[in-house]
């Protein structure tokens, strides 16, 4: 069995999984370099909050700073490559821009690669995958798919890559699956280590858990929206990541914040127009009031989020654009702090 020692030096992690950095030590105004200097950054959050956009923006920012960066998608939806108007990349490391690569990590492909790395002999691997029993067992083992997916992320983050001619990356950014089932995905290594008590996969699962909880090398960003429920969920997610996974959240990006285009006094003047005028004037006044109301209620949510979480909250503006493409991501990447 191959030795799978972790090549990146690990310091300061704990097996127990509790927080290794007291929350107070996380400076409120830590610069973004703190995040981009990590080896691995996990971008997580509820569905539909803009995780892919933030992951790509972080990738663009790191690439612009000269870091060889790869953005990993794990949901086979190829949202990242779509943002670049690029054809689907699949289970390949494809260059999107200078210094920026993208890969869609498919669990079945990860499994094939993992088994090959274990067995070394391609013919033997192929025989194994033709076996119904093997496929059956692999599918029946809870969490195995998620585990090999995280394993692939780990592999990408190695300076000495396991796969032949593997490229070295300075930074691996993960567009994590939507946290519909709590922190499930990130918790897989720990769960798995407890159900597979012995054998190589047990120690590998522990190794993956160490990677995820190694705050010196692994950073985590939650993406949230400035609305009541997403704020509640993000606060709960931060707590679960801390207490159940042992991950300290570095940043919470509050995405889609409306600009404050109109003052309160202006809004009062506009409400007169909205009530008394007709046609386009009335519609325009209503749109302005709508913008004003939303911007205001979002700021209340921003304040609420800041009160409820420990990690620094950074905002990203709502972009009044029909579809977000590479240009929008580039603009957001410059706004990241």
């Amino acid at each position: 069995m191959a030795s799978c020692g972790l090549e990146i030096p690990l310091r300061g992690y704990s097996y127990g999984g509790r927080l290794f950095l007291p929350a107070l030590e996380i400076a409120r105004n830590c610069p973004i370099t703190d995040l981009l200097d990590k080896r691995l950054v996990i971008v997580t959050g509820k569905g539909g909050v803009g995780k892919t956009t933030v992951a790509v923006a972080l990738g663009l920012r790191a690439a612009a700073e000269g870091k060889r960066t790869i953005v990993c998608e794990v949901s086979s939806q190829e949202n990242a490559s779509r943002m670049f108007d690029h054809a689907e990349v699949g289970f390949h490391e494809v260059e999107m821009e200078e210094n920026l690569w993208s890969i869609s990590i498919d669990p079945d492909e990860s499994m094939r690669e993992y088994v090959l790395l274990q067995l070394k002999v391609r013919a033997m691997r192929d025989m194994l995958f033709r076996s119904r029993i093997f496929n059956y067992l692999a599918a029946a083992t809870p969490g195995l798919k998620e585990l090999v997916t995280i394993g692939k992320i780990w592999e990408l983050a190695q300076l000495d890559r396991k796969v032949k001619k593997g490229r070295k990356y300075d930074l691996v950014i993960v567009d994590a699956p939507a946290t519909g089932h709590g922190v499930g995905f990130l918790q897989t290594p720990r769960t798995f280590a407890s159900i597979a008590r012995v054998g190589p996969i047990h120690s590998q699962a522990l190794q993956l858990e160490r990677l995820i909880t190694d705050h010196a090398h692994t950073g985590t960003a939650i993406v949230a929206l400035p609305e009541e429920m997403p704020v509640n969920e993000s606060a709960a997610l931060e707590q679960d990541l801390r207490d159940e996974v042992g991950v300290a959240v570095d940043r919470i990006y509050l995405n889609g914040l409306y600009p404050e285009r109109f003052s309160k006094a202006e809004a009062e003047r506009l409400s007169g127009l909205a009530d008394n005028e007709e046609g386009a004037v009335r519609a325009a006044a209503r749109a302005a009031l709508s913008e004003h109301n939303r911007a205001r209620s979002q700021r209340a949510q921003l304040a609420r989020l800041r009160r409820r979480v420990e990690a620094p909250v950074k905002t990203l503006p709502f972009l009044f654009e029909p579809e977000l493409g590479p240009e929008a991501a580039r603009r957001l990447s410059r706004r990241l702090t």
Partner: protein
Amino acid sequence: MPALGDVLDGKEICICAGSGGVGKTTTSAAIASGMAAQGLRVCVLTIDPAKRLADSLGLKELGNEARQVDPALFEKQGVEMKGELWAMMLDAKATFDELIARQAPDEESRDRVLNNRIYQQISSALAGSQEYMAMEKLFELHTEGRFDLLVLDTPPTRNALDFLDAPKRLTQFIEGKSLRVFMKPTGLAAKVTGRGVSVALSVFKRIVGFDLLADLAEFFNAFSGMVDGFQARAKRVNKLLADPGTCFLVVCGPQGEPVDEAVYFHRKLVEAKLPFGGVVVNKVHYPADQLRGESKDLPTTLAEKLGDEDLGQRVAANFSDYQALAERDARNIERLAKELRTSSVIRVPYLDEDVHDLAGLAEINRYLFATGEERVAMAAGRA
């Protein structure tokens, strides 16, 4: 464009499906409260581990048992509650445990399953089991017949279809008859099977370790007495889903990506021969189509009316931003209606305040349950 009330007329089950972040939970709660207000006894089930539904219904918490929402809360919002609204949050593990208890031939086999570590993982953590248990609970509640209508808020899986396959996948999972033979502790496998199988088993064992394989074997053995019962039940669940009394609503947002997913999801429903009822598009920017011609000199007109050139400019610029979003939404919805070959596209506007309480639900219901004409009138007024 039929009103939602017509779509749901006579239905016993309404399943809201769609990708994450499109407002499924809110839509489910709004539909349930709207139908209850009309006089039905309705129960809304959510699987979301977050307490969204409880929050929005003014309930402190939801459990695996249905709870009634206080009708007085609706009256405070000026909504006359002719029926009853109940809500519950699915506890997948508890439901699974109950199911095991029901299917197990005796206490010993029940405990063997409940104590097995593989089972414990599957029942609480395995993706797919929540979906399966949602179907199970739906089936159970439907069989009990306590409610006129059940509204299911499906889990926010990235792949919105997972739950359709869930019953099948789970029964396949526990089926594995051939497998159980190989796993017998007597080592029968080595004697009766070909080399391929034993190699596969031994490699698998090398990778995951003996312990896990033993747990799996134990799990299959413990389950063996229940397979038939599970399969029979899964068949009845599938039949219920395909029943004309069931209605699938696809929920999405107006952006390109959620619309793509809605199209994909609809196609899968049709392929699976499941009854599609319509699509709800949330957070739509209502266009003011008919006003576009007039808006040419808008900055000037606004500046005059406001007596403030700068403000007039900004209001006009903001309006054109909003119109661009409204036009995008209109394009996407047109595409959606075309792809789905349906006129049942119900648009809910992007409200100024986000919806998280009964007042918000009542506001949404004005759109969900409005007739076509009412909706057009409201759209024009809202711009």
